[in-house]
C-alpha cells in the first residue's frame, strides 16, 4: 500500500533528476557526434553562446527570433489541447505573411494603424490555410496530420506564384533592382517598433508573444471555452454527448492555431530582424520558424507558459548556429542538438507515466 504513496518532494526531485539526465544525454550525444566527425565540441559551445548571447546586439536578435517561435508554439498548444495534430505551421506562417504583405499594401492606411492591419490579416491568412485542413478533416474525414503537412509544400508554391506576379505580391521593377521574387519593402511607419535597450534592439513582437502566451494559458485553464477544448481533446465521445460539437470546436481550434502561425508570419514581416527578409516577403521567408515553433510546443507539453523559456532556448540555438560555422563544424549541428534535445525530453514524462501506472496496479492488487 505504502509504495503507491510518494511525497511530492521526492517526486519533484525525481522529475528534476530525470530531466537533467535526459538533457545531459542529448548534449553528450551531440558532443560525441562532433568529436566523431573530427570536430571539437568546446569551441562549438563557445560559438553558440557568443552568437546567441555574448556578442553585442545578439541577445536582442535571439529575443526577436524567439517571438515568432513562441507565437507558433502558443497556437499549436491550442489545437493539441483539442486533440488535433496540426503540423503545418510552416505553411500557415508563410501564407499569413503573404496575406499580411498583400492586404497591408492594398489597404495601406495610416502608419501605426496599418501595422495592426498587417498583423490582423496575417492571422486571417494563417487561419484560412489551416481552415482548408479543418474542412478536409470534418467534412471529408482526411486526417489533419497529413493534410496540414501536405499543405506546407503547396503553401510555399502558392506564395512563390504570388511573388512572380506583379498584380499579387511582386514588387515593381524599380523597387527590387535585379532581384526576382521579392515584395515591396514595408514603409518605415508600417513596421513594428524596435526600441533599443542596452545596445540590443528588441522587437515589440516579443512582448506580443509573451502576452498572448499568458492569455492563452489562462483561457485554456480557466474559461469555459478552454474547458470544452480540453474535454474534446481528452474524450471526444464524452464531449460530444455533453454538447461540445466536435466540428465547430475542433475546426475553430485548428483555425486558431493557424491564426497564431499566420500572426507569427506577419510579426516576422513587420518586426524585421536580420534573419527575416528585411521587412519584405521573399521565397523561403518562413525559414523553418514554423517547424521550430512546433518543436517548442512539443517540448512545452501543452503548457503555454513553459513554451516561453523553451522558445528562448531554441531561438538561442538558431542565432548561435550562424557563429558555429567559423569553428569548422557544420552549422547544422544545431538542428541535430535540437532534435536530440526534443527526443530526450520526451523520455521523462513517459517513464513517470509508466511507473505511476505500475504502482497503481500494484496497489490495486495489494488491496484485493
Amino acid at each position, binding site marked *: 500500500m505504502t509504495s503507491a504513496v510518494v511525497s511530492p518532494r521526492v517526486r519533484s526531485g525525481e522529475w528534476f533528476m530525470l530531466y537533467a539526465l535526459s538533457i545531459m544525454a542529448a548534449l553528450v550525444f551531440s558532443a560525441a*557526434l562532433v568529436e566523431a*566527425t*573530427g*570536430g571539437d565540441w568546446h569551441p562549438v559551445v563557445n560559438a553558440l553562446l557568443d552568437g546567441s548571447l555574448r556578442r553585442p546586439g545578439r541577445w536582442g536578435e535571439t529575443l526577436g527570433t524567439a517571438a515568432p517561435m513562441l507565437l507558433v508554439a502558443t497556437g499549436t498548444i491550442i489545437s493539441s489541447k483539442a486533440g488535433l*495534430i496540426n*503540423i503545418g505551421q510552416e505553411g500557415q506562417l508563410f501564407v499569413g505573411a503573404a496575406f499580411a504583405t498583400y492586404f497591408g499594401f492594398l489597404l495601406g492606411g495610416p502608419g501605426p494603424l496599418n501595422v495592426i492591419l498587417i498583423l490582423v490579416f496575417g492571422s486571417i491568412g494563417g487561419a484560412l490555410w489551416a481552415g482548408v485542413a479543418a474542412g*478536409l478533416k470534418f467534412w*471529408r*474525414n*482526411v*486526417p489533419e*496530420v*497529413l*493534410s496540414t*503537412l*501536405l*499543405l*506546407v*509544400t*503547396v503553401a510555399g*508554391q*502558392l506564395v*512563390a*506564384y504570388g511573388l*512572380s506576379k506583379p498584380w499579387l505580391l511582386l514588387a515593381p521593377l524599380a523597387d527590387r533592382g535585379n532581384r526576382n521574387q521579392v515584395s515591396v519593402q514595408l514603409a518605415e511607419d508600417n513596421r513594428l517598433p524596435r526600441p533599443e535597450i542596452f545596445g540590443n534592439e528588441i522587437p515589440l513582437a516579443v512582448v506580443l508573444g509573451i502576452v498572448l502566451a499568458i492569455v492563452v494559458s489562462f483561457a485554456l485553464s480557466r474559461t469555459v471555452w478552454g474547458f470544452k477544448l480540453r474535454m474534446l481533446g481528452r474524450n471526444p465521445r464524452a464531449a460530444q454527448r455533453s454538447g461540445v460539437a466536435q466540428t465547430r470546436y475542433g475546426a475553430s481550434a485548428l483555425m486558431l492555431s493557424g491564426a497564431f502561425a499566420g500572426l507569427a508570419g506577419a510579426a516576422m514581416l513587420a518586426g524585421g530582424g536580420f534573419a527575416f527578409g528585411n521587412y519584405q516577403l521573399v521565397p523561403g521567408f518562413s525559414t523553418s520558424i514554423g*517547424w521550430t515553433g*512546433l*518543436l517548442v510546443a*512539443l517540448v512545452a507539453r501543452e503548457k503555454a507558459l513553459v513554451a516561453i523559456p523553451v522558445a528562448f532556448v531554441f531561438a538561442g540555438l538558431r542565432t548561435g548556429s550562424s557563429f558555429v560555422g567559423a569553428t569548422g563544424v*557544420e552549422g*547544422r*549541428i*544545431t*538542428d*541535430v542538438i*535540437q*532534435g*536530440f534535445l*526534443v*527526443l530526450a525530453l*520526451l*523520455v521523462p*514524462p*513517459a*517513464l513517470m*507515466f*509508466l511507473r505511476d*501506472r505500475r504502482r497503481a*496496479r500494484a496497489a490495486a492488487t495489494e488491496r484485493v
Partner: protein
Amino acid sequence: MISGFFQAVVDIASSESTYINGALFAAFLAFAASGEWVAERAGTLNISVEGMLLGGAFTSAIGYDITESVLIGLFAGVLGGLIIAGVQAEMSHRLSADQFVVGLTLNILVFGLAGFLDNELEPATKLAGRWNIPLLSDIPLVGQALFGQRWPFYVLYALIPFTWWLVFRTRWGLELRSVGENPQSADVSGIDVNKRRRQSIYYAGATSGLGGAFLVFGQVGLFEDSIVGGRGFIAIAAVIFGGWTLRGTIAGCVIFAGALSFRLSIQGLGYEVNSELLQSLPFLVTLFGMALFAHRVRAPGALAQPFVRGLK
C-alpha cells in the same frame, strides 16, 4: 487551349520516359507504403516514414562508400531504417510517448543528422547496374519501365507479395491485424499488443530503409539531404487513399507517382506550364485523392490510439 492540353496529355501518355519515371516514383513510394501499411494495420500512423526513408538513403550511401558494393549498400539502408524504427517503436510503444510527437521529432532529427553528416563525410555513390529482363522488357511503352530498370527495382516484386503473405497468411499477421482493430480483445487473448506494434514498425523501417537505398542506387545515384523531399508523406497518404488494403495502397502509389512523373514529362516535352502549379501537383493530387476517398473507407479500429493495459 483545350486541344493543346489534350495534345500534351497524348504526348505524355505515348512517351516511354513517362512510364519509366512513373515506375521509379511508384516503386520508391511502394517500398515505403508497403511497410507503412503493415504499421497502420497494427495501429500506428507512423509519420516517421519520411525519416526512415532519408535515414535509409543515407546509411546506404555510407555503406556503399565503405564497401563499394550495392548489395551491402541495400543492407545498410535496411539497417538505417531499422535504427530509426527502433527509436520510434521503443519510444511510442514501450515508453508510450505520443507517436506523432516522436515521429515528427525523428523526421526533423534525421533531416538535421543527414545534412550534418553528409557535409562532414560526403559519401560517394553510383547507380546500380541495369538489368533488362529478356522479352518482357521489349513490350512497347511499359516494358522498359517495368522490366528494364536497375536491379534494386526488382526487389519490390518480391517484397509486395511477401508483405501480403506475412499479413494475411501467417499467425503473426493475424495477431498484427487484431492488434490494430481491437487491442483490448487482443490483449485479453494473450497477444502482447505493444510488442506486435513495435514489430510492425520495425517492418516499416526495414522496407522504408530499402526504399531509401533504392532511391540512391536505383534512381538518383547520389545522396543529398533533400532526396526524399516530403514524399514519405505521400506514401502515408497512399495507404489512406487505398483504404488500408494492400492493393489500394499500391494503386495509390501508382496514381501519386503518375502525378510526380507527369510533372517531369510535361517539362521535358517542352510544354509551358506554371511551374508552381506543377511543383505542388503531386501534393494537390494526394489531397484531392484523400478528400474523395478517405471518408468511404474504414480505418483500422485502433489506428493512432496508444495501448496501455487497463486503460480504455
